[in-house]
């Protein structure tokens, strides 16, 4: 696991440098930053807002914001990719706000139906082609300490977190999806996050001890 970590660090340094240059108005550096990060941010946005045209609009907003805020990025405080991804996620979640009156949820029943199509069709097609939130979670688990900590959650806790995080579902939507009471889902998510935090803090301590 030494190699990926080194790559990650290298990539972080590079992105921090590009952000710093963008912060002083270097458009070429910003173009490179876009080149290196846009497909990741677009994928993140697209999982939350599946309308491709809207997702592209969001991505545009995200990078305009990044350009304007680049000088506020502090490499000592944040990982650049986290900073960028957070901006993208927040914009994507904001975009759901406006559509929230009509939540469109993926249900196995609807996928089998087929006649009461309308715009659900688009959603189903995209959703079926893409890996589900749990698939993503299991892929992410290969990567880092977070993965190990995810393992400590119960299956339902994990699923709740994955649906909320990857798909941008609200508590109510997660509850709907899992056919569980809202209060139950809320407490799963909450406990899951607390478990993750405690577990990750443990991991940081262990890593720190190993490195010194």
């Amino acid at each position: 696991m030494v190699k990926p970590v080194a790559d990650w660090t290298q990539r972080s340094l590079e992105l921090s440098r590009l952000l710093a240059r963008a912060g002083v108005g270097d458009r070429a550096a910003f173009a490179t930053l876009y080149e290196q990060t846009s497909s990741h941010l677009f994928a993140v946005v697209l999982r939350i807002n599946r309308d491709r045209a809207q997702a592209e609009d969001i991505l545009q907003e995200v990078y305009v914001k990044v350009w304007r805020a680049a000088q506020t990025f502090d490499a000592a405080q944040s990982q650049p990719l986290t900073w960028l991804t957070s901006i993208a996620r927040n914009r994507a979640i904001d975009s759901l706000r406006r559509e929230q009156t009509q939540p469109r949820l993926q249900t196995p029943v609807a996928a089998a139906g087929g006649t009461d199509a309308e715009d659900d069709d688009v959603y189903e097609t995209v959703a079926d082609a893409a890996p589900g939130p749990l698939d993503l979670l299991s892929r992410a688990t290969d990567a880092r300490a977070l993965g190990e900590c995810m393992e400590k959650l119960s299956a339902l806790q994990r699923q709740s977190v994955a649906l909320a995080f990857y798909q941008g579902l609200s508590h109510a939507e997660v509850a709907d999806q899992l056919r569980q009471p809202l209060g139950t889902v809320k407490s799963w998510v909450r406990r899951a996050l607390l478990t993750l935090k405690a577990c990750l803090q443990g991991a940081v301590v262990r890593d720190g001890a190993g490195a010194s």
Partner: protein
Amino acid sequence: MDYSRPELADRLAAEYAAGTLRGPARRRFESLLPAHPLLREATRAWEERLMPLTAAIAPVQPSGDVWRRISERIGGGEAKAASAGPWNRLAFWRGLAAFASVAAIGLAVLLANPSAVPPPIVVVLAPTGTAPGATPPASLVASISGDGATLVTRPIVPVAVQPDRSLELWAVPKEGAPRSLGLLPGGSGTVALRAKVLAGADTLAVTLEPAGGSPTGKPTGPIVYAGKFSL
């Protein structure tokens, strides 16, 4: 609510980062961030914790239109997204070359090289006229790396010369003799530039030489392409 209470700040930040804090609560949380360092710090920490989850999402390429729109909005049409390396932009150069019979143009292109080295200098070499023995005139593009260590040339249109001839590239200083930079089979070549070989030069020229290059070390044949540049 008392947002200076660490537990509350942490819980809200967790839900904000996880995406479950929604609607008016989310808006309110965002509006509080600038004034509450504790909330900000908690949020940052949660984002660092959770964001690695996104590493599992397979990248999706947005359409090129997105960058164009961004570029317009940030007030710069000139910066190009970097994937379009110099030679992927041949269509662009071809279009340019059509107008470049007006001698030649030295262009410093913002190629968005991800490093502190200066951008490459791109030199368009245009035909200098009908050269005896030359096949239909074509134009070349030469790119001098930002650190001045290498020069790469590519033809914009196919270049062919008779088998008993070679194309040779020269750096032509304002004063003094041209210095050979090497042969360009088919108009293509990669040259490792010796130190100072471009010093004082303001023109790149390609001559038609006997096969294997000029026997004398000085140009002997006609100049078929030339382009000005400045370092």
